[in-house]
């Protein structure tokens, strides 16, 4: 099983959620985050006064998928989150040791 973590632009969340659902994923976790990469922050001016926005708001999505599904999930995220501009985000993939459903005690892929 793999943990797929995607950092995306906030306004792409609805599209990514729909695309991921179509790829067969039934659950995901969403977190409001902020960060910087090559996009960097920028300076806002309000009534002549500058203030720096160093961190850019993003959305982090965490999905645990069975190994055979991983590529299709990544493709779905790529296709739906991409605008072609700097700041589209990144996807990280790591291994998951175990998954357990708290309510029933099911483990492994049955808990996905």
């Amino acid at each position, binding site marked *: 099983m793999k943990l797929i973590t995607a950092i995306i*632009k*906030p*306004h792409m*969340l*609805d599209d990514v959620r729909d695309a991921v659902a179509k790829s067969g994923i039934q659950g995901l976790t969403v977190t*409001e*985050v*902020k960060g910087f990469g090559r996009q960097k922050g920028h300076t*806002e*001016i*309000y*009534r*002549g*006064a500058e203030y720096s*926005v160093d961190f850019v*708001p993003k959305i982090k999505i965490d999905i645990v998928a069975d190994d055979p599904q991983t590529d299709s999930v990544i493709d779905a995220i790529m296709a739906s989150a991409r*605008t072609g*501009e700097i*700041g589209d985000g990144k996807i990280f993939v790591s291994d998951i040791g175990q998954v357990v459903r708290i309510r029933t005690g099911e483990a492994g892929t049955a808990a996905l």
Partner: protein
Amino acid sequence: MGKYRSRKVHPTPSPDALKNLLYAARDELTTETRLARAGLDALNRYSDRVDELVRLIFGNARKCTETPLALLALGGYGRKQLCLHSDIDLMVVFDGAIGVAEERSLKSLLHPLWDLHFDVGHQVRVLGDFENVETDNPEYLVALLDARFLDGDQAIFDHFSETCLGENPTWQQPIRSALLDLTEQRHVQYNQTLYQLEPDLKDSPGALRDASAVRLLARLGNGNGTGRRASDTGRLSEAEDFLLRIRSILHLERGRNLNTLSHELQETVADLFGSSDEQPRRQVEALMSTYFHHARIISRSLAASLKSLGTPVTVLSTPINDDLARAWDGIRFTDATRASLRPRTWLRVFEVALDENTNVSEQVLTCIERHGERYAPERFFPSPAERDLFLRILRPRPGLYARLSEMHDSGLLGRMFPEFQKIYCRVIRDFYHKYTVDEHTLLTIRTIERLCAPANPSRERFASLLTELRAPELLVLALLFHDVGKWTNKNHAEESVRMAVGALRRIKLPESAVTTVQFLIRHHLQMSTVAFRRDMEDPEVVNQFARLVGTEQRLKLLCLLTLVDIEAVGPDVMTPWKEEMLWRLYVDTYNRLTLGYGDEVIDTTAAAIAELTTARPDDISEQDMATFLAGLPQRYLRLFEQSRVYEHVRLSRDIKRSEVHCALEEKGSAWELSVVSINQPRLFSNICGVLSYFGMDILRGQAMTNEHGLVLDVVQFADTESFFRLNPSAKPELVDLLQDVVAGRADITQTLRGKERGLAPRGPSRINPIVHFDRQYSDRYTILELIARDAWGLLYRTSRVISQHGFDIELVLITTEGNRAIDVFHITHHGVKLSAASERALATDLDAMLGKQNEDDQGDRSSE
């Protein structure tokens, strides 16, 4: 050794016998629970059965020691309100040291109870321990108040009771403090509202712990009877009984000591309570409506008990006027009987309570509850005076939420506005909403109130927007109605608009205010949609949103409405992340509206201005309209209603070079001057100079130029020196001077020179002036944004400096916020944007002008 007086000596029971006893008791309670009858009486009986069991076990346990001891029930067990899976809280008190034998007796007590799967909370003390109060254990202190003797040495219990539960201030004060602190902490945890959609039957405000707190406060001796009627005790018991019946069902269904009445369980509970042939949805609505009814009773009883703490009974009331008096519990009617026949006076109580930052008394609330239903909505607003009074009440300030809650709980709000009554205790079941719709509405207003003094530094930027609103009561009015449409399952925004407009027209709110409130309600979800779900880095997204809001005032109103609407959905729904996104959208839109509006000009094709053209008066031709509007920014049509546009068109007729056509009228506490002229050098500066000459304080306004060189300036100003009031010929004098200056017959610069020297500043300057050039918001203009302390003649001096450089002022946006002037100029030089060198030169001279202003201020201050 104390005198041992046990109730009975029991033979040692077998574990199976104990189990059978317990199961029999539980079966009986379960049967009652399934019939929704497991309230006070049933729990009392169950507690008696548990007592028997505990005594049997204790009887065996006490044989292990010679030391006298007593067994007490505490907390809920002490109150005999045990539900199926409640903890049992016990305290064992020894009259002597605790050694091996005593520990053995404790084990003999606890182990059988654990074997029976009781959750046992236990305290062990020796009598000497009660000489000191354990102030670091508030839950324990409060639990002691419900202590009940179960078995053992009665004398030990009597000694404990006399020491800790009597009128001994050493114990009474810390116990009272513990009770109050724990109550407050619980209330804060639940956002201080009883209108939880999934309430915790024990801990939520208005739930069982609050009911217990009412009794405990009375027992502590400060419940001196004031503020609580005899019937309250009966209503309180009824409320407790109802909540306990529900709690019993929760225990049965969950199989554990879990007390949250979740959406899922509401259906089960409602089914057990309700009639079998009713729809489940109606059963749940009836259940929750009844729950809130009882929770309110408990909440009001607790509020009355808290109010009466430390208040001497003999405080007399002080008259305020013929109708109202100030009493120990708030503002009351001097004659409730007379007041009951005069509903138009009821709102005044709330205004006085707000002004004095105190409560509305129980007497008033009871009077309104009893008599309100006799009166139709119109009876509360018989004249504009009552409408204006209501609007004054709605101005954000401390106490607003509490007063509106009182208005709502007493039924007054629903009587005045049946539209609001439609969402009374309305439940919307989804993942996000934590409160009933009416409480959510009031909580939005509470958040606005808190912005008056923000506790969190990140809220200060939003708080500053609140201070910049010209009519903040309209924001509160919009909040009051923004979700009334949720009484139905249709598109609630449009339904809310429909209902609100009806209500506002009924009280004859001015149409411009109705339009503003209508806009806010219709679009109250729009800003969050754009901020969180659209690409704000796309300029067109911000442009579209800017076109929707149209003006900075609407933007501020909508921004604040969005902030508080999200915050009031539930705890932690408005996160710092969302706040930042919302603020960014506000800034981008504000900049677009103030800096970037110049490039968007009115489309004068027939279709685009069809509405204006169709409704035009007979004396205005289509050509007149098109000629006047050509080249004006689109913003002009957002700022001015149709009737104003027609007035401006008339002013522009037959205007010649060096002529001025103007209209000057009083509008509330300010004046408005509309000037039409043909563009010429220093025109704007001259107009500002004339106003400054007469001592006028320019508050806000705009200056625009159309493509034919026609200039329209509309300026609002305050007559701070009362020039118009004191001089009957003042208005013609101002107009005449304006005409002379524009025609070149008078030189305002010379006229003002002398006056400039002798003027004092308007107030201390803590504002560092800012001169900022923007190059990105317009393709046509250089945009100059100037922020400085508002001072006499500032606009005149600024525009004079710009004119001296030979630059043309095409558009101006003038705003004053408190003592801060915020002016935006759209400038060209020979029809194009300024070069970088020109900007630098202009900035240098403006800085020098503003720097001199600051020096003058400091010089004047140092000479004071």
